[in-house]
């Protein structure tokens, strides 16, 4: 009798390794949601409400810039169009509504926060101790969850008014 061969399911299995989603893109999305949320709860000085709403990202962070650009293509900051700038240096003459300094670029940012002191720029960082160095918002990870510290005095130095709701989301820490 002719022997019937079993069709092998193995090729199906070998191609069955699931594609892994990009974790870096996931974190970029979270930070983008945070940054976009900040635009809703913070009041900028009048001259920063004119023209584009500029979000500067210091250093080389293409994943985050790409995600921010996706957000900027569909969202507005109140009535302002959102513009994303990838920055290699931070000029004191630059006009940024938000300046984000990622953890990996903190060391290269030097005295950028000091140089922007008094500007209407919300400085957002993600390195321990950055609130003490003048950052208004600093991302922290608590039990694997990204949260943020908020310094009202540092925000006020930048002429920014922080909404109470945003205060309620911030974590209280000593550093």
């Amino acid at each position, binding site marked *: 009798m002719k022997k019937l061969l079993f069709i092998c399911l193995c090729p199906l299995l070998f191609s069955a*390794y699931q594609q892994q989603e990009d974790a870096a893109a996931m974190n970029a999305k979270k930070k983008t949601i945070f940054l976009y949320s900040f635009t809703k709860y913070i009041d900028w000085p009048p001259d920063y409400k004119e023209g584009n709403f500029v979000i500067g990202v210091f250093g080389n962070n293409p994943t985050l810039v790409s995600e921010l650009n996706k957000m900027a293509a569909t969202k507005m900051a109140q009535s302002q169009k959102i513009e994303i700038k990838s920055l290699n240096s931070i000029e004191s003459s630059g006009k940024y509504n938000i300046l984000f300094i990622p953890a990996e670029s903190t060391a290269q940012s030097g005295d950028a926060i000091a140089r922007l002191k008094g500007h209407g720029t919300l400085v957002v960082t993600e390195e321990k101790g950055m609130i003490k160095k003048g950052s208004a918002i600093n991302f922290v990870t608590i039990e694997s*969850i990204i949260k943020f510290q908020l310094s009202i005095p540092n925000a006020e130095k930048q002429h920014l008014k922080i909404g109470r709701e945003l205060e309620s989301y911030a974590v209280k820490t000593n550093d």
Partner: protein
Amino acid sequence: MINRITYRFIFMLVCMCTSVYMQAQQNDDFVTAYKYIQLNQVDSARARIDKAMRDSVTLGKDPQAWYVRGYIYKVVYKTREASDRNSPARLQAVYSFFKSISLTADTGKQMRADCKVNLKYLAARFYNDAAQALDTSNYKNPIQYFAQYLSIMKKIEPDMSTVKMEVEFAMALATTYTSLYQANQKTRANFLELAKGSLAKALSLDPNNVSANYNMGILYYNQAVYLIKGQDYDIDLTSLDAIQDNQVQLFKQSLPFTEKAYALDPKKEEALLALSGIYFGLNDFEKSKLFQEKLDQLKKEQKH
């Protein structure tokens, strides 16, 4: 045209059925059915064998008559319904061969063996149908075909292990469910659970299966990533907090499966990449970097 294999079948049939032919030669329908199948006139053979079996109480108790019926229906299946995965003839053939076995006394070892050979053939066809039909547009029938394969094999070869095939099928099914889920993650969450269920079944049968462990880990991992990927930028921070909380749980559920896949196969690049991703998702960047470095090292070694 009758091919060589069919001639061999008929020769076998003639040898085996001499006794039943002798006993049943008084039954015209049986004799005619027998002649028709020798002439490869399968439809006529089927009609006559059914009439014979219906009308004769004696034939209904004769294992050899059931064998002939099974053989005729098997030929009907092969010649008329081979492309019909729900072939009624195949089911009739299976029924007849089992009936023959059930009526065969211990002395009829050859008859049992011949029935088993035919049943194995039919079981293999069910298995192949399950494998071939398994796609995203048709995922329910293969489960039924595979169950029929298992049911036949467990009856005729109770000591034979079907674990390997059950694991392979469960994993292939999980792949199909995952594809269905990925096509629309918002509305097809049930397929994700089905995929997990299939992999859990594979792991219950073979806990050290590298692919099953890895795929289960990746299912949880991707589910975690998708929780945020599928969100609008407008979600409020309370919702974002809740999503992150869920993500952490999912990454933690992913971890033991992925770690096991890596422990079982330390050369598995995908497992290292996944571990790096899981720890990145848990915001443990040191560990994430550690596994990325291990992956880089492994890739270097494999180049040399």
